[in-house]
């Protein structure tokens, strides 16, 4: 289904979609307040963007440097060309450790690679430990937002789910009570796991260390209790030097949730005595995107989700309407590169208002890339209805006679056409919209009467 069709599903519950809209806007507002409290905010964005320019121009060198330093520190480095290879590497480590159950903290990359279903098919129990991710995992859903995985759910739904899965009191919707139930349930999983998987926020070439940020502490809880830590990292997550973390960590949480910083920011450089750290560097379409000059900058993304929170379309259509691991504006410029056919409606799921570009902490020109993708897609799909109407318009504007008459016809038509012209399944834009009120006369007629 296309984005508009999926969005229509989400909008079937108007009260819930209004709540979704308001809640994400509230987070956007917190982001604004927090960013305004940092006088050098705009300079930081520019610095972050420039550092990422340098990274993308020298990616191969930085990856080699990262590998060299990480290896020196006792980390085992693996490379995966695609999702399949990534998943196979994870499985081979689990087999070597004879591990049948793992805990996993939030990692968009493992979602992108569909690691969970792959491991489950191989008889491995995967427990997502981020509270929001555990909730959607219980429901068999993917996350609907990259930072707030369960933002599409109301507490009543979570209460019912926990009653079924964790035997909490029926009807108890208190977020503290439900969170404590999850804490006890997941504590058992943490204590039992031999292998823990995390994502990576930043990999530092200079030191070979990588950084993982959470508020819940679930990533650390998992890896420090397990014997083996597997970190999955997209190759674009590299930054050159440790000191650059001082730029990115100032931007990340402020942009994401309007916090000063996430409560836990862990720097992994070498394994604890007697333990192992593996890191998997994953391409999966990133080198192809690097080769697309117009879309290369999308690889600067640090996955804060600010563009989703601000987007008038995302807020009103929900994350699932995008049918893409990364939804929202940034997802709509990343996903067409992975599968143009499947994601062809996404670049059109935007008003091109540019708010996404304005809030992006690494200054990705998101709305411009959305516009460029539209052109790519139109080229790939041939002449569109829009083009036909442009051709028609061209004819009308060329002849003064045709122009005068078309205005009259249009005013009459707007008044007299049946409502079914807009309220019909063929016209998605007609939904929740009405035709404009029709002026009695054209501007030309008004001018002749009043000014001539």
């Amino acid at each position, binding site marked *: 289904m296309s984005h508009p069709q999926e969005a229509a599903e989400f909008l079937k519950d108007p009260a819930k979609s209004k709540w979704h809209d308001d809640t994400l806007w509230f987070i956007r507002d917190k982001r604004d307040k927090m960013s305004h409290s940092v006088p050098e905010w705009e300079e930081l964005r520019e610095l972050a963007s420039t550092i990422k320019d340098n990274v993308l121009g020298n990616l191969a060198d930085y990856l080699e440097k990262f590998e060299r330093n990480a290896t020196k520190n006792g980390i085992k480095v693996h490379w*995966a060309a695609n999702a399949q290879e990534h998943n196979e590497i994870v499985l081979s480590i689990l087999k070597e450790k004879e591990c049948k159950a793992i805990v996993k903290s939030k990692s968009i990359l493992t979602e992108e690679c569909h690691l969970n279903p792959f491991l489950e098919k191989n008889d491995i129990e995967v427990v997502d430990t981020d509270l929001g991710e555990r909730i959607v995992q219980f429901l068999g859903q993917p996350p609907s937002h990259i930072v707030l995985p369960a933002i599409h759910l109301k507490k009543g739904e979570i209460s019912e789910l926990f009653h079924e899965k964790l035997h909490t009191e029926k009807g108890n919707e208190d977020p503290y009570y439900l969170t404590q139930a999850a804490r006890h349930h997941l504590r058992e999983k943490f204590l039992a796991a031999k292998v823990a998987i995390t994502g990576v926020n930043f990999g530092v070439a200079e030191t070979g260390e990588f950084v993982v940020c959470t*508020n819940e502490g679930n990533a650390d809880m998992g890896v420090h209790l397990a014997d083996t830590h597997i970190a999955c990292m997209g190759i674009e997550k590299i930054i050159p030097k440790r000191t650059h973390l001082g*730029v990115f960590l100032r931007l990340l949480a402020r942009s994401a949730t309007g916090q000063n910083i996430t*409560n836990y920011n862990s720097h992994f450089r070498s394994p604890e005595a007697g333990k192992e750290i593996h890191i998997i560097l994953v391409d999966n379409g990133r080198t192809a995107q*690097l080769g697309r000059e117009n879309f290369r900058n999308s690889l600067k993304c640090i996955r804060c989700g600010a563009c989703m929170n601000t987007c008038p379309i995302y807020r009103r259509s929900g994350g699932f309407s995008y049918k893409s691991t990364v939804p929202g504006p940034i997802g709509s410029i990343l996903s067409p590169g992975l599968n143009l056919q499947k994601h062809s409606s996404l670049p059109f799921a935007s008003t091109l208002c540019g708010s996404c570009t304005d809030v992006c902490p690494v200054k990705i020109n998101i709305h411009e890339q959305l516009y460029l993708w539209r052109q790519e897609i139109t080229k790939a799909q041939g002449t569109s209805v829009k083009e036909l109407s442009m051709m028609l318009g061209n004819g009308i504007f060329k002849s003064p006679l045709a122009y005068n008459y078309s205005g009259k016809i249009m005013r009459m038509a707007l008044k007299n056409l049946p409502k079914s012209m807009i309220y019909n399944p063929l016209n998605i834009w007609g939904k929740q919209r009405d035709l404009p009120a029709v002026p009695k006369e054209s501007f030309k007629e008004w001018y002749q009467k009043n000014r001539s």
Partner: protein
Amino acid sequence: MSSRDSILRKIRSLKLDQKPLPEIPDFKGGDNLIEGFSTAILGNKGELLTADELSTKLESGLYPSVYSSVPEFGKFANQALPTDPHSFSKLDLAILKGQFGVAENGAIWLEDSDLGLRAIPFITEHLVIVLDQESLVSTMYQAYDRIGGQHSGFGLFIAGPSKTADIEQSLVIGAHGAKSLVVVLI
């Protein structure tokens, strides 16, 4: 060809613009470090206590099982550092010393040598971090400048207790890690 080599070769085959790394200017941040840090810790839902207030709290017997790596509070500890962090699954309180704090966000830096075991600040039910107020720096820029090339296998910034807002954006303190963070500035 290995995936490693094919990824690197593919990147190198692209004609990519070479842009220089920017210099990071030293953004000074606020002047009143203690005030900035205290505001940030409270904003992150941490608490601030004086050493005396903490002692009084510890004497009350609120925490049956206590580990401390800070000599000043050693007399309240009844747990020694285990070899396996799983033995701390019922630990009520850990008292650790932080290396320095960051005024702009309340983050406190700790490394392997400060932690004993990396799991401690997470597995403990409650956490106290003792910090010299002389150690405060202004922003993350100064923080990384201070860390410099220091080599620790693990280091982390802790800025508050474990928290989540994954249920309808309602803030809940105590998700998986420590349910409270008390910072004692000395």
